């Protein structure tokens, strides 16, 4: 599904140039659950953002489903993104003005799904995430665990092929964290490819494979058994 080759990304200020990704090469197959680990500043988030088409690389190749997208403009990337990728963030990033239902509904609105279909699909996914009873609540009225479940529901409602999770349990206690990881595992078992950035060895154990980064380069790959 994903194949990146010699990917490079620099951050420049007037005086300093920082290399975030240094000729990084990796591959993720359809149906995989990959964890990316490494110390702060190793380039995990930069990688995730490029994989999620929120950012573009300075050098190198990024093949997504066989298409070279490294030099796509923002509009093309956005179009590809909204049909293929779901995001889960550490800080949930729900929209405060919208209810649980409306938050989950939003991606469907933007992809032009009809109103009747939207209700059906949102209810389906809320049910799956066991958050249906909270459908008319606002994010501030929910616990962290519940908010992350809503965020996951929002990420999957469009049936993306790929879910990118950026420390999805970082703001949760261990019990809620485990629930979230179980959810992601379920999704993966149903066929969704997942790439997750994490600091937690515990969470990483849910994945099939761990890629460890240091200074923008892969230093080690562990295959989980």
């Amino acid at each position, binding site marked *: 599904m994903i194949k990146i080759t010699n990917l490079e990304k620099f951050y420049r200020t007037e005086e300093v140039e920082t290399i975030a990704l240094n000729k990084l090469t990796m591959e993720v197959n359809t149906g995989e659950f990959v964890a990316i680990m490494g110390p702060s500043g190793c380039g995990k988030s930069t990688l995730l*953002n490029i994989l*999620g088409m*929120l*950012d573009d690389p300075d050098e190198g190749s990024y093949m997504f489903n066989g298409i070279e997208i490294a030099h796509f403009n923002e*509009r093309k990337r*956005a*179009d590809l*993104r*909204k049909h293929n990728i779901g*995001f889960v*963030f550490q800080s949930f*990033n*729900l*929209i*405060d*003005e*919208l209810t649980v239902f*409306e938050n989950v*509904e*939003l*991606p469907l*609105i*933007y*992809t032009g799904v009809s109103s009747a279909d939207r209700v059906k699909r949102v209810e389906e996914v809320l049910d799956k995430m066991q958050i249906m009873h909270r459908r008319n609540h606002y994010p501030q009225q929910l616990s962290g665990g519940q908010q992350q479940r809503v965020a996951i529901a*929002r990420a999957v409602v*469009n049936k993306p092929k790929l879910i990118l999770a950026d420390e999805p349990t970082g703001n949760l206690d261990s019990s809620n964290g485990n629930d979230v990881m179980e959810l992601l595992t379920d999704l993966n078992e149903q066929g969704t490819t997942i790439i997750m950035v994490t600091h937690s060895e515990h969470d990483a154990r849910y994945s099939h494979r761990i890629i460890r980064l240091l200074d923008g380069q892969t230093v080690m790959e562990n295959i989980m058994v």
Partner: protein
Amino acid sequence: MIRNYLKTAWRNIVNNKFYATINVAGLTVGLVVGIFMLLWVQDELSFDKANTNADKIYKVGIVGGTGISKQIFNNIIAPVATFAKSEVPEVKDAVRIMALGDAPFKYKDKVFIEPDFAFVDPSYFTVFDFPLIKGDKRHPFQDNSSVVITASTAKKYFGDEDPIGKVVMMGQDQQAKVTGVIADYPANSSFKYHIMMPTSMYNYQGYVKNKRTYDNKSFVSSMDGDWSQFGFQTYLLLKSDVNMAALEKKLQAIHERNKPEDAPVPYLTQPLLQMHLYKADGTDGGFSTVRTFGIVALMILIIACINYVNLSTARSMLRAKEVSMRKIIGADKFQLFMQFMVETAFLFVISAVFAFVLMFVLLPYFNQFSGKQITFSLTNYNIWLCIVATLLGTLAASSIYPAILLSSFEPLKALKGKVTVGIGNVAFRRILVVTQFAVSIVLIIGTLVIGNQLKFIRNKNLGYDKENIISVSMRQDMKDHFEVVKNELLKNPGVLAITRAGRNIVTDGSSTGDSDWDGKPANSNMWFNQIYADKDLIPFFKMKITEGSNFKGVVADSAHFLINETAVKEMGLKDPVGKRLRVQTITGTIIGVVKDFHFNTIHKKIEPAVFQYNPNYCWNLYIKTTGKDAQKAIASTQGLWKQYNNDVPFTYAFLDETYAKLYTTEQKQGSLFNLFSAIAIVISCLGLFGLATYSAQVKTREIGIRKVLGASVGKIIALLASEFMVLIIIAIVIAMPLAWFAMQGWLQDFAYKINITWGVFIIASVGATLIALATISIQSIKAALANPVKSLKNE
């Protein structure tokens, strides 16, 4: 999709009541004031447009006099219209109007003094769109003694009875039969005659029944043969594409051919559509005021828009996360753009609803204040056009920029809090605040200058005494018994003095160019303002004689003249006293020079004037009272009036009030400007208040850190306030020259005016600064006093 937008919009308003209130309040006030002013402007620009032939109707005038006495006469001689119709092919039709004003009409026991009485040609009803709604359209006047009235006049005289065929009495003995009724004039018509008789009646009374002579030798046979009386407003209905300059020459040729001694007498024409806002010579006659008001209306609307733009862009940082998430989830730029457009539109609809309610409530006051008769009738297409255009324009101005800004966030950076609304955006907001305050300061300076000029007008030494003087326009009987009336009134202890004159001393009167004197330059065509007087006029008004002496009240005075200083100068006389002077048919001697005084508005320079001793022409009675006894004096005058003119209602005026009325327009402008600048500053302060609040919020952490490091409350207030004070100072610097130029232009219209002093600028600047400082301080003090532990935790 739209539903989702509206939902978000509504929840945003509910969650941010403070900003929503500031925005709605600013927009509502801006819309109300802006729309009212634009309606006023629109009404002013719509005068006489309702006439189908409006673009082909021209008013005819002549230029009289030279030098300082050069002026344009809007009333011309009667025969020009008749000749023009028969000799000038471009002329399709002509209308003459002889407005006499204040004619007494009587029906049964009802007596009215009709100020809007005129003799008109029958073409009045066809050239203009004033068709008869009752009576014979083709023959509005059946004979000389026919009268056409307006619907409301018919109601006034006859109630619900059919007015056609009713006979009213004009004056003592002239019967007038109603043969036609026209609809009431629209409010934006320059023509307001409510009772009209045919010009043929004027001809009968002025030339047939009573003989008329100008030289005591021969009689003028008819008004069409009278080349001396300049009394007719004359309108020509022309064919298309007429060369106006050539037409004017033809009219001049007609005049000079028939009365060579008037030559040169240049003619000029003025389009009907320009009559309301321009003077006859095409110079400004109100248009600049209309333009100023239009500009001020736009400025106020712009200030209101700026508020919205300022607040919503300032707050955009707080919405960066939401916008980013929407983008990451799949919203494209256009969808976000639309979302913010809908949000603005939503807030706008709320403001517009409030504005409508307010306008509806305030309309009667607005009409009273502005002297308009605007109604929000559904059929009044123009009004709705104006309102809708204003709403859409304002909406576009305030929605597009914030929508573009918000929808163009880069999601990744925004999510991380590194919003790219950096320097550029802040600078833009600052420019907006500067604009708002610059406009407000210009308006404040404008208010002060107008106020000062009005004060100058009130306190100006006019060269005569106008305090506690009652003026009464006498009728024949009373005038003929002036001496008796005078002696009776003087018995009254409250009456200090009595005099009479041929004109109202504070307003325009008759003038003549028919004069000659020893040493008159060949090329001089100087016109005299004529003031008929008795011997008491000069001392009564405390005017000064600088040379020679006053009239003595003897028969010989009828061949004596007093002239004013300007006349001396314009005539080119060295020692005027004793010099020969002829004015019209009277040849005599100049016996004295009167110090210049303002017998007209101070818009005009003092013109040459001649005082002629002729009690017979003195229709104006002046009574000087002690002030507190004024009412007693009025009562006894009324008693005497009844004794002589019982058939006509008694009216009087205080001279200082008549004088004040000359400046009604300026006074209205003054109070409107007061209002506008107050509103502009209030709206600007609302915006500033919102920004200061926001700024204090954003800087909560900075303030917290500074306080932990030991900054005093005073220092922190200074830090927050200084950011805005710099902007106010820039606004002042920009506003001062703008205001100076604008007000210099306004003052141009006065021949006698104040100088714009530094004081005005200082007062306006200090005032604006203090108001702004007070606005900012509320928030700054609150922020500075906050507990730093709390504010740091917040972050």
